[in-house]
């Protein structure tokens, strides 16, 4: 039986573990997301800034070099042209200008002697024509600036440049005009090598960002583990504590908040354990006190009982030897001693139940025989109407069954008067004994309390013959068999107490034996 149980418990525990891991995943996920976002923001902004700065630096440098060269070429070559050059002259000059280290295309525009506009393009770049130069640039180049000392401008024409993209390739277009009616020169420089460099830079930055993201995810995992593992341990410990294992403690390592939390948990568990121990000890002490007290009462009671019997015999002897003044006193002592005996006996019984030392002594019992013997022994045969077939056997503790029956029937006789009807029914695994009286029944407000200790049905009744423990002892005796007693009012009047007992209480008895053995070991 035990290994199977252990297996089931182990299985449940692993399942619980899975569940908790799943639940913790959300926190883990949140951590990973936050870490990722932080890494992404940092990497993207850093790469963005780096890219932008780099791009500007590279382009500016290239541009400055190209424009410097172009300016130089314009001054040296185009400046030497006559104001109205021929197509050939223009073409030659354009070729010379393009033949520099910077490899840019040159377009020269001028007016020849006939007033016709002539164009000359260096052959370096295919079809560098005026269409390739944006109109705004052309306008700016051909605009004559006001020259004057007040404006600080010394030249009538300036060099203008613009970056354009044609068919996906970036170009630098610049243009200027020779002062005093010379040719207008344009240049076109492909920025493709720079764009390629910048592209590969962007790729590298992108890869770096990706790596940073992966790294941050791993870091987040690690961080989550360092945070979540203690949290998980805390969770497990809290669950153990909840299951009643009050000696559960956490190992405290480090000085962080989680260590603080563990320490707080340990303090709380310690305080709880101490509290429960204290309460258990107090409870145990008061129980032991009642047990010891009823035990101590027995010794004088044994002596008194033995002697009281002698007095009783003297009373029954009818020799008239007893003083009539003393006789009532002796009678009182005899009857009250018997009451005290019953009370102490019941008290002992109750303390045994409370301490859990009550045991079943099982035997095979014929229920009908047992009930007959019980009512016969108490001279109740005339007052009880028994409806039971012989041959209903059950395996239970005959002494305890007798206690239950005596209390139920005695109670019915006391409150309901005779006749009391006792009916026995049996199923395959249960015996049901109903005890019904013909009294006024039990008031509804009393019904839930009939099995309480020392509960008296009416406060006006100053004293009862019973100890006030009878029904509660009957109930405890039913419970130790794994049975039950219920109290109700019958529709046709009178109270009905129904006792249900299993037909075989062996399993329960063995279990309690095992418990004792375990307690004995501890």
């Amino acid at each position, binding site marked *: 039986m035990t290994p199977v149980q252990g297996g089931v418990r182990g299985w449940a525990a692993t399942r619980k573990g899975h569940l908790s891991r799943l639940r913790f995943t959300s926190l883990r996920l949140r951590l990973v997301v936050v870490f990722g976002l932080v890494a992404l923001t940092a990497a993207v902004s850093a790469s963005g800034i780096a890219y932008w700065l780099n791009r500007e630096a590279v382009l500016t440098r290239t541009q400055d070099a190209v424009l410097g060269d172009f300016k130089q070429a314009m001054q040296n070559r185009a400046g030497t042209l006559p104001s109205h050059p021929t197509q050939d002259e223009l073409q030659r000059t354009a070729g010379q200008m393009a033949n520099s280290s910077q490899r840019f295309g040159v377009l020269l525009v001028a007016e020849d002697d006939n007033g016709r506009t002539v164009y000359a393009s260096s052959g370096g770049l295919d079809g560098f024509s005026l269409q390739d130069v944006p109109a705004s640039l052309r306008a700016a180049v051909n605009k004559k600036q006001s020259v004057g000392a007040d404006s600080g401008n010394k030249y009538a024409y300036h060099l203008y440049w613009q970056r354009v993209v044609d068919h996906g390739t970036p170009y630098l277009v610049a243009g200027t005009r020779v002062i005093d009616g010379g040719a207008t020169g344009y240049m076109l420089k492909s920025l493709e090598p720079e764009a390629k460099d910048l592209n590969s830079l962007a790729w590298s930055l992108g890869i770096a960002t990706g790596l940073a993201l992966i790294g941050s995810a791993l870091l987040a995992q690690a961080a989550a583990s360092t945070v979540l593992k203690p949290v998980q341990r805390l969770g497990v410990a809290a669950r153990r504590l909840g299951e009643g294992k009050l000696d559960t403690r956490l190992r405290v390592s480090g000085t962080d908040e989680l260590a603080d939390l563990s320490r707080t948990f340990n303090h709380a568990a310690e305080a709880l354990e101490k509290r429960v121990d204290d309460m258990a000890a107090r409870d145990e002490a008061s129980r032991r006190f009642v047990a010891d007290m009823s035990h101590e009462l027995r010794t*004088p009671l044994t*002596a008194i009982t033995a002697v009281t*019997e002698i007095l009783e015999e003297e009373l029954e002897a009818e020799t008239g030897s007893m003083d009539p003044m003393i006789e009532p006193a002796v009678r009182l002592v005899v009857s009250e001693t018997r009451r005290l*005996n019953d009370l102490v006996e019941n008290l002992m019984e109750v303390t045994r139940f409370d301490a859990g030392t009550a*045991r079943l002594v099982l*035997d*095979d019992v014929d229920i009908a025989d047992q009930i007959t013997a019980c009512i016969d022994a108490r001279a109740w045969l005339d007052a009880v109407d028994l409806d039971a077939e012989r041959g209903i056997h059950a395996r239970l503790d005959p002494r305890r069954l007798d206690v239950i029956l005596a209390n139920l029937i005695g109670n019915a006789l006391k409150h309901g008067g005779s006749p009391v009807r006792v009916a026995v029914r049996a199923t395959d695994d249960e015996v049901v004994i109903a005890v019904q009286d013909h009294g006024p029944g039990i008031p509804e407000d009393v019904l839930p309390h009939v099995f309480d200790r020392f509960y008296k049905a009416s406060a006006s009744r100053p004293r009862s013959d019973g100890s006030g423990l009878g029904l509660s002892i009957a109930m405890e005796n039913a419970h130790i068999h794994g049975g039950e007693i219920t109290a109700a009012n019958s529709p046709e009047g009178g109270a009905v107490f129904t006792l249900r007992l299993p037909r075989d209480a062996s399993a329960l008895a063995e279990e309690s034996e095992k418990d004792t053995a375990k307690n004995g070991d501890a």
Partner: protein
Amino acid sequence: MSPVPSLLLIEDDDAIRTALELSLTRQGHRVATAATGEDGLKLLREQRPDLIVLDVMLPGIDGFEVCRRIRRTDQLPIILLTARSDDIDVVVGLESGADDYVVKPVQGRVLDARIRAVLRRGERESNDSASFGSLVIDRAAMTVTKNGEDLQLTPTELRLLLELSRRPGQALSRQQLLRLVWEHDYLGDSRLVDACVQRLRAKVEDVPSSPTLIRTVRGVGYRLDTPQ
């Protein structure tokens, strides 16, 4: 056996000892008393009583130990007087060889009835004998021999064996045996039977742990068989 049975009462509490002595004397017994187990054992050797009423809680050696010491040499009946009906006490008492027990506060009449029932167990009743394998029960001499050797049985053990041997092969329930041997009412403690059967098996069986004579009938009780 003397016409007036003589008892030895071992009880440490003065009041109980005096009261029980008073009560038992009135019931017609001769009562000797001792306050400790040691005194009781000494008195036992001097006086040879018919029966011992023994308190469990004694200063010095306790009632169980006294019981065990008596059983080493003597088979005379012992009734335990226990202050608790705690089950463990009863079981230990029965295992140490007591014939019966009463729980305090005991009524003198109940104790007297128990004493008389125990003493009756030693009385002979018929004049025949029966044999079960190597075991011979002589009802005339009230002796039991195994392989020709005399067995030392207490009157209770002897009576139990006689009741079983009177109905060989027939199962007797614990309640029946309690009525027949102990003369208890319907609430007799069935552990008395179990403990006595164990002691009896230890004496009559070849291998007490696997009995061939006194067999347990599950759910019923015990049965005496003739071994094959």
